[in-house]
């Protein structure tokens, strides 16, 4: 029903390619997150679905129908803006009612729907207030209410949580997921916050400089990042990346990196053999401070976070390494020389030239 399809969608602003031949299929009822750093094209892509930006190439189809030339108002989609974009001169009730007025519903029906939505989002006490009299969180809910009252085929959300404070953000995140689950409406959600993406998305589409890097469910993205960009972007902190080369001797196969070596399992060694120079990736939780470790590094700073600590070290060639340490362990001193052990099963290999993940041919 509410399936969204991007086919070769491209958008240029002058010389800059904001969105580069994007192919993406959002299934009906799915919450797909467009994730990436600022300037990666995710908001532009969203606005093209809304009809607020024109496409230079490609097509966008909603529910099987190509909508490139359809006016925003005829596309049957609703949008939640980052700045909420509420009508400042109208009350909350009228704000929510606004999209219904153009649809030829009679007054009773409109009132009923507005009330229904207000109850769902806890906005009843505020129906007669104006947006200027509401807090940020309340305004955000009004923006949501205005979007859902129309029962559209798809929701478009442009970083709706970025203007909320941290605590409110966590709460609202859960509310939005629950709401979307209940309504079952296809949702395209844009954010630069990978924690939001990981906790909310059915799938995440990672974008960088207008190019789609990878699209997969959150855990897949985390466990098997398709390139060094995704590997570094997801996870807090992101994956550690080191330049390396395969070395094989009687002891076994390892990847020689600055400061020492990283153990390789047999299958990984096979992949490394086929490739040229390598980028070796290891997540902080696959590292440990161990006097028997195979890497030598010096401690730059220790970030104590309560339940755990991040020990940020430096390899001889300057590469940063973040090691996750559990609570209660002995914290090293700044500048101390330490040895780091690497869990072989937690090693990811990427081609040094293109950053692509090395995989066994299926």
């Amino acid at each position, binding site marked *: 029903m509410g399936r969204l399809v991007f086919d070769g969608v491209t958008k240029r602003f002058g010389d800059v390619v904001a969105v580069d031949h994007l192919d993406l299929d959002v299934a009906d009822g799915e919450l797909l997150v467009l994730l990436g750093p600022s300037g990666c094209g995710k908001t532009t892509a969203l606005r093209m679905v*809304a*009809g*607020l930006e024109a496409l230079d190439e490609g097509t966008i189809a909603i529910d099987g129908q190509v909508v490139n030339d359809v*006016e*925003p*108002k*005829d596309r049957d*989609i*609703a*949008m939640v*803006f*980052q*700045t*909420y*974009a*509420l*009508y*400042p*001169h109208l009350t909350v009730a009228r704000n929510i009612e*606004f*999209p219904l007025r*153009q*649809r030829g519903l009679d007054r009773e029906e409109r009132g009923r729907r507005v009330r229904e939505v207000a109850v769902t989002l806890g906005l009843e006490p505020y129906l007669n207030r104006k*947006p*200027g009299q509401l807090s940020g969180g309340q305004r955000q809910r009004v923006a949501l209410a*205005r979007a859902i009252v*129309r029962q559209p085929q798809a929701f478009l959300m442009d970083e709706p949580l970025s203007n909320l404070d941290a605590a409110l953000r966590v709460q609202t995140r859960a509310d939005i997921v629950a709401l979307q689950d209940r309504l079952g409406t296809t949702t395209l959600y844009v954010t630069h916050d990978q924690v939001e993406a990981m906790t909310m998305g059915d799938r995440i589409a990672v974008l960088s400089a207008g190019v789609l890097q990878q699209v997969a469910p959150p855990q897949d993205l985390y466990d098997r990042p398709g390139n060094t960009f995704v590997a570094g972007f997801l996870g807090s902190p992101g994956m550690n990346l080191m330049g390396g080369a395969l070395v094989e001797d009687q002891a076994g196969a390892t990847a020689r990196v600055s400061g020492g070596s990283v153990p390789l399992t047999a299958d990984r060694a096979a992949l490394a053999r086929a490739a040229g120079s390598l980028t070796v990736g290891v997540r902080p939780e696959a590292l440990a401070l161990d006097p028997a470790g195979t890497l030598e590094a010096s401690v730059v700073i220790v970030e104590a976070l309560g339940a755990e600590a991040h020990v940020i070290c430096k390899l001889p060639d300057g590469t940063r390494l973040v090691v996750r340490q559990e609570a209660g362990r002995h914290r090293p001193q700044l500048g101390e020389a330490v040895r780091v052990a690497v869990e072989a099963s937690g090693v990811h290999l990427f081609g040094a030239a293109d950053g692509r993940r090395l995989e066994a041919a299926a």
Partner: protein
Amino acid sequence: MIRGVELAEAGPVRRRARRVREAGLGYLLLLPALCVFGVFVFYPFARNFKLALYQTPPYPNLPSTYVGLHQVGQVLSSSNFLESLVTTVLFVVFIVPAGLLIGLFLAVVAQRQLRGIAAYRVIFSSTVVTSVAVSALVFYSLMNPVVGLLPWLGISPHPSVLENTTWALPAVAVMAVWQFIGMSFIIMSAGLQALPEDVLEAAKVDGASTWTSFWRVTVPLLSPTLFFALVVAMIYAFQTFGQIDILIGYQNAAYEHVNVLIYNIYTTLVYEENPGRAAVMSIALFAITLVLTVLQLRILERRVHYGR
């Protein structure tokens, strides 16, 4: 001991000295402006009331006699004054809505980022640099019965437009509207550009057609600007003087039909040399503009929506 006492006192004394110095500087910086205001604004304002109460003698060099409110009553009920009042009202009613609507229309049409739009914007704002004298001469030539455009358009009343008791006022009004278009356009354009883009986009996505979106979203959001433009337009309309002087002038047969209050005050002062009458009329004009401004503030400001 003595030193301790000195130090203890030095603090507050020094502070007081500093405050006095600051106050002195404060007043000093206001002095130039206050002098100008005192001599050329407040004193004349007060004296105007006094002048209104004294009847000017028929010959100069005779003292003017105090007649109190009698003169006020006489002037305000005179047909000359009342006609002037009616003319002024007609003039304002013609100019203000026309000027505002045309400016708004042009601003809306020129709002998009189209190719060459900058040239159009310059053209639409251009009348703001035409001075009173220039505009008047431009239209003087256009409306001249022999030289102008009107015969070609089929408009040849007798007497000619600028001497015609029926047509003189509309003619001047048309000219005044033309001159005001530049200012109106600039104000409306500025207001339109300051509108929050995302709210307008939300309206698009919410299904509002261009027409609905304009009346239900754009205009309410634009209301502070519209209000400001209205105030400016009113001041402009009431102060229209030079155009009348150049286009029509005192000697003209139609002069009485374009004799708006400000013009009347001028001719009474300069040609009839009757400051008493002039003072009464100027107070009347002042009262009218004051009441209108207050009314506007009361009635309209409530309906003006100021941002988020």
